């Protein structure tokens, strides 16, 4: 290959970057070549995103240099990076929803004339999208596009602005299974045309499916770089976690379960209006029995959050009836519902589950203040709280963190464990678990899944909202698929294929602008 002769397109040398309390990057050396898909793999907080944001000029490195085409460059802002033909697709898109595809692309062009030639831009978009399979209607308003198409617009923006290095930050997080496949196809065509693709992810399956070279990061350093042929799931895991690779990646599939006479949760024709968002719940009927995990599949934003909020009493039912353990709970307050034995694992632990600047102990106390109040609330029994924290961590087979650590100082995994300990320590009869493993590394995710299976086996009910189909298939006794606020399918996992779920999740017709 002529790669070696040409030398790397981008070289990072000795890049270091520290934030308060954490060294995000520590003397990182890394090369990106033309015509390769380079995956950056690592658990959360390994420093992948920080490193790429330094290359894109979003952060400045404390030390180290960046070479583009062998020349040393000082990248001080994303503008500098774009001039050097480096582009980045962020996790949250940077499109303007009210404008059309062509207008969004035009805004990003390096030399936008005072009166942009609409026809010319639209023609260019059509040419490029045809070439790489990024078909989007240039005249469509971005707001009307599905997430997968919006991502295509992001890529088009970079291509028309002449980027040669394309960085994708967790690009598949928002996509449905078949959209991921088509993204990979696009990436491969771009690679064949000589683009340099950097793909940040923590999902092994994706790395093995599309990368040419794989660099594993661990605690801010490079743990190793492998070519695609050398890499296996096991070698990558051992690089990500040193020797401490998880013994078992998947939880055991559930067996047959008996169905209780009274469901723990029953929704009859429940509809709900969302505050702010446009997704509503429409005529939801579901039953959840004790000792059962009901998996909720769907692209996020299709009513998952509203479903959880309705069950927890945070969102009122506009119509229909909600029964908890056989009692009509339609009008119960959130506090009443919680006291009746319902726990929750929020989708964003820091934003929705704890008070960030409070300590582990204080957050644990908040979970059940009635229990710890003395003299009607005039005092709190902190030793009882501490004992309960120890006990519930112990029951989960974990060791408790320092009781006076602030919640925001905990890592993602430890924070999730503290919530699991608090919620499961109360021995709930029903748990609403929303994306319980999102953002967790492989080890933490596996232990969280095992915990959910354990409480299910002890007779509790679990509503498991997830976007990870492996997780849903691995844990659920039954599955429902949500699309635009409706249950479009209820099935046993063995009776429904991934592809079918993927199409149900996206309403099949995605890919064409409305």
């Amino acid at each position, binding site marked *: 290959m002529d790669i070696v002769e040409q030398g790397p397109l981008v070289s990072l040398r000795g890049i270091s970057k520290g934030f308060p309390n954490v060294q995000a990057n520590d003397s990182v050396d890394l090369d990106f070549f033309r015509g390769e898909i380079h995956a950056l793999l690592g658990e959360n907080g390994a420093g992948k995103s920080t490193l790429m944001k330094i290359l894109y000029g979003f952060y400045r490195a404390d030390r180290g240099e960046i070479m583009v085409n062998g020349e040393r460059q000082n990248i001080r802002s994303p503008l500098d990076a774009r001039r050097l033909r480096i582009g980045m697709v962020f996790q949250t898109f940077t499109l303007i929803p009210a404008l059309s595809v062509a207008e969004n692309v035009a805004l990003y062009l390096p030399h936008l004339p005072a009166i942009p030639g609409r026809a010319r831009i639209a023609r260019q978009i059509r040419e490029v999208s045809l070439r790489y399979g990024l078909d989007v209607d240039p005249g469509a308003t971005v707001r009307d596009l599905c997430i997968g198409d919006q991502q295509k617009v992001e890529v088009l923006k970079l291509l028309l602005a002449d980027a040669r290095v394309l960085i994708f930050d967790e690009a598949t997080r928002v996509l449905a299974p078949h959209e991921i496949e088509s993204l990979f196809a696009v990436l491969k065509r771009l690679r064949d045309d000589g683009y340099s693709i950097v793909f940040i992810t923590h999902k092994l399956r994706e790395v093995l499916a599309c990368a040419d070279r794989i660099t594993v990061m661990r605690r801010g350093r490079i743990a190793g770089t492998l070519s695609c042929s050398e890499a296996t799931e096991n070698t990558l895991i051992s690089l990500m976690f040193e020797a401490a690779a998880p013994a078992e990646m998947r939880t055991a599939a559930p067996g047959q379960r008996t169905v209780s006479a009274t469901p723990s949760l029953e929704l009859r024709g429940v509809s709900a209006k969302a505050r702010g968002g446009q997704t509503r719940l429409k005529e939801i009927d579901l039953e959840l029995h004790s000792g059962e995990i009901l998996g909720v599949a769907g692209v996020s934003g299709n009513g998952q959050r509203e479903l959880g909020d309705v069950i927890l009493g945070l969102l009122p039912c506009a119509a229909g009836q909600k029964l908890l353990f056989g009692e009509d709970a339609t009008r119960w307050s959130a506090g009443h519902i919680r006291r009746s034995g319902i726990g929750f694992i929020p989708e964003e632990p820091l934003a929705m589950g704890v008070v960030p600047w409070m300590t582990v102990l204080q957050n644990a106390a*908040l979970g059940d203040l009635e229990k710890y109040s003395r003299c009607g609330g005039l005092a709190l029994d902190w030793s009882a709280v501490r004992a309960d924290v120890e006990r519930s961590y112990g029951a989960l087979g974990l060791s408790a963190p320092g009781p006076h650590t602030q919640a925001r100082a905990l890592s993602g995994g430890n924070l999730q464990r503290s919530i699991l300990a608090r919620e499961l320590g109360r021995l709930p009869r029903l748990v609403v678990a929303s994306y319980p493993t999102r953002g967790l590394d492989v080890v933490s995710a596996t232990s969280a899944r095992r915990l959910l299976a354990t409480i299910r086996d002890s007779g509790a009910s679990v509503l498991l909202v997830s976007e990870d189909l492996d997780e849903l298939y691995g844990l659920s006794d039954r599955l429902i698929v949500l699309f635009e606020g409706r249950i479009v399918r209820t099935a046993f996992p063995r009776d429904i294929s991934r592809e079918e779920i993927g199409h149900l999740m996206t309403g099949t017709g995605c890919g064409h602008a409305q």
Partner: protein
Amino acid sequence: MRSRLKVLSDQVRRGLASAALRYVLILLIALAAYGAVLLMAGKDPVKAYGDIVKFTLGTSYGLSEVIVRMIPLLLTAVAVALPSRLGLINVGGEGQLYMGAWLATWGAITFTALPAIAFVPLLIFLGFVGGGSWAAVAGLLRAKGWVNETISTLLMNYVAPLIVGYFVYGAWRSAESSAFPQSPAFPPAARLPRLFGTRIHLGLVLAVLVLAIYWFVMQRTAWGLRMRAIGGNPEAARRLGIRLGWYIVIVLFIAGGIAGLAGMAEVSALHGRLRSGFSPGYGFVGFMISWLAGGSPLGMLLMSFLLAVIFAGGSLLQVTQGVPFAAVNVLMAIILFIVLAQIRFARRRRA
């Protein structure tokens, strides 16, 4: 364990030292800036400041007057600090103060025959309820998600003095001195007792008691923990089954009640009758004190004393230097400006 305690106490000491340094710096910059204003007005700033120190801190009478000023400042500061723990911004201390005074006046001129032993608790109750219900209106609007409490409390500040004005110009206008718009005099039993033979009155005890209760409730009780949880993360608090709406209304009621006590104490202990415009903006200064002190009880005690000195100094300068009383507002504005600028600066440094 001992070494940990030592580290902790070191940290506390360092924290206190840096806070003290911060306050001193703020004060110095503000005094210098105000000095420049005085110079431009053709006054002698050094003499002015000298006068202030001499006549407020240097004599026992001056000191007692400072403490008299401090009472409403401390109370209205707590009235801002308490809801701020829930993330609520109560700008309405001034209006709540007026409504507390208004309802207390109604009691004082209606039940004229009561003995002092019954009158004082009645006035405290009425002052509290008057200010409290006024603030609870804003609380209800906020809890329902209709109007932001910052806006409603701010706007209600303009209504309360007008209500008081309506009564003192109209139904309650005193017959004995019809030249001045004011209510009839309170019966002697409706005057809060004074202490130490000065103008310092029972309000001081109320203020310190309120401050102590505020600290205890916030730090030690289950309610305090709930309130801090609401302030720290309302989303999580809602999920944990805490009744946000209920807490918002109750806390604003109590906060308004505390500001109402300040108004009641002013009219009952000092003026002995209700006059329109009796407060020189205590409620607004209380807001400033609460933010300057970051809601810390000790900080509020110190800052309310300091600002009481400035207030007392303002009336002094009016006499000695011929500077209008309103000129102290310039100094207050300078202080507030420096504090806000400094918060922004600190934030940028952290980021």
